[in-house]
């Protein structure tokens, strides 16, 4: 008799749940909906009696979220916080008004709430309810999980897009010296490592020796002639990772490149290809690179303005 009565009550409760599901589909579900469903589920399986420790944990989380004024937050807002995405201004304003210690404690509490939802309560409900009834009861909880997965997948896709920009076939190739200094840079220079979230560092060290840069200089006769010269660059490359970088017309590398670099620019004593950079008569200056084009300037008596394109004449060497 008691059991029949209990099943009848569950049937009525599930009908209410189904009705509120329909409402939730029209306007997005909220944190309040999630907690309400967990409370309904709790009553189905006498959770406070069978699993008092976890039930108390749910009580504590319910109180925390109520005090934080977060019950009206939508799944979209909640999953933004959960996946560490940037929230819109209105959401942030709301958080700061109602949830002073938003960042860590709030997200940790959301994780705890999900852990309660997918733990012994879910197991007890699955043993009691049919699959359709379970799916109906857990709809806002499942929708929360689905939105987290969609946003987390997008975040991983973004990581891959950035890795592609930094390492893919259109990225600058490193010579052996650069492989070495970038490896060492990861060990000793802050900012050269990927972020805690797994995003690549935007920085890369540059150490090149180029033999095909172009400059113009006056001959002994006073004529201005073009010359192929040897140059060196020691600098820092920075990747932009914008959505649009590197896409577009022929001169996109100048307008919206995926990477730029700047640093010291070196030339040897003579304006000649395949010559030494160091030693007496060495000239030094600065360079700026946008995409695969760079412009360098060396100071001193034999000052030069040099233009070049990033292309390795001997792959992986220079």
């Amino acid at each position, binding site marked *: 008799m008691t059991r029949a009565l209990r099943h009848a009550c569950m049937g009525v409760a599930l009908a209410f749940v189904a009705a509120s599901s329909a409402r939730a589909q029209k306007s997005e579900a909220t944190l309040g909906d999630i907690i309400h469903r967990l409370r309904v589920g709790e009553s189905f399986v006498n959770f406070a009696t069978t*699993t008092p*420790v*976890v039930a108390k*944990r749910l009580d504590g989380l319910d109180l925390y979220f109520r005090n934080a004024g977060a019950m009206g937050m939508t799944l979209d807002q909640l999953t933004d916080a*959960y*996946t*560490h995405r940037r929230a819109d201004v209105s959401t942030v304003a709301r958080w700061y008004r109602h949830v002073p210690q938003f960042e860590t404690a709030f997200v940790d509490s959301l*994780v705890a709430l*999900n*852990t*309660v*939802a*997918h*733990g*012994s*309560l*879910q197991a007890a409900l*699955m043993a009691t309810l049919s*699959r359709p009834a*379970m*799916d109906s009861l*857990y709809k806002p909880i*499942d929708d929360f*999980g*689905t939105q*987290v*997965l*969609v*946003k*987390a*997948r997008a*975040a*991983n*896709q973004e*990581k*891959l*897009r950035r*890795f*592609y920009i*930094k*390492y*893919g*076939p259109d*990225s600058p*190739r*490193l010579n*052996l010296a650069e*492989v*070495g200094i970038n*490896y060492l840079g*990861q*060990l000793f220079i802050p900012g050269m*490592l*990927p972020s805690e979230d*797994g995003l*690549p*560092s935007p920085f890369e060290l540059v150490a090149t020796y180029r033999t095909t840069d172009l400059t113009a200089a006056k001959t002994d006769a006073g004529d201005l002639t073009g010359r192929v010269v040897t140059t060196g660059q020691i600098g820092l490359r920075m990747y932009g990772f914008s959505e649009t970088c590197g896409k577009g017309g022929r001169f996109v590398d100048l307008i919206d490149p995926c990477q730029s670099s700047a640093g010291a620019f070196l030339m040897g004593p003579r304006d000649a290809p395949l010559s030494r950079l160091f030693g007496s008569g060495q000239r030094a200056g600065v360079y700026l690179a946008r995409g695969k084009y760079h412009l360098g300037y060396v100071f001193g008596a034999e000052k030069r303005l040099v233009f070049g394109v990033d292309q390795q004449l001997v*792959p*992986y060497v220079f």
Partner: protein
Amino acid sequence: MAIQPPQTVKWPADRALLFVHGVGSSKPGDYDPLVAQLRDILGAESKKFAIYFLYYDAVNEWFAQKLQAQTAFTKLVTFLSGRMDGSALGEAAASFAGDVIWPVLIPDARLAIRAALLQQLQTMVLDGIAAGVQPRNQKLSIIAHSLGCFHTYEALSHAATTPAEGLGPASAGVVLENVIYMASPVQLIRSSGQAIGKALPQPSSIFSVSDAALAIPSEPGDDGTPVRCARRTISITGNLDPVGGFVFRSKLPWAYMDLPGQQPFIDQEQVATVNGSEEINLTSILIEALRTQGPPTIEPENPHDWSAYVARHATDLRKWLA
């Protein structure tokens, strides 16, 4: 932009299987015969599976091209192995330079593949949801081989400690049915990484090296008890497979992955097949020679062959994936 999107499959039932390959330069479709082999093993049951295959060599190729991995990192690892002791560990670390060690030395390389694997797992779960099967009812399995075991271990460890990925066994209720490691180099990489010591960039992003001990990835549950990422974790290796931690039938404790709670299987491998059989004994060879009136056909065996691992465990796979 040549970033391969995650594979998406329409689920025929409530289960899905992901293959993660090992070293090599595979492109989509290269492992179709292996998938066909498994479908044959499962028979009619295979129709219930949404089968996924993660091909990540395109990502490896970015790094190999940019960094000239084959030359630069071989030199680097040779240098590093010279700094290790003169034991077999140093030699092994050097011999696996191009394939196993360089994801250890370049955080970006391993994190890019981890992102690819995570987004594939997320797509699998979402495909299941699209088919009306919520994660609590999904039966997901992974079969990984060789270096794929390392990437699987890393991805599952990250998922278990990062609820934001939406794949946590406790926080998201995503508990896999099976994780089957075949010829896993996870312990070898751990030993090599720890031997490299301070020369290892960002050890915190490589669980197999930085964790106090290797363990089945897990997340604290609602009562604080760890919830494992898989109901069944299986480790299979051959006793001639150095990647799996064996050299000439001798287990190397510093190279053999021994996760507490795993189901271990050590296959008895042969260096060669005689007349197509791994059963090598004088009687069978004589009988076959008399039958065919000719000398025996001797073929060398690849102890690391993925297909051979699958074939040897056909009966087990039918049981585990049922």
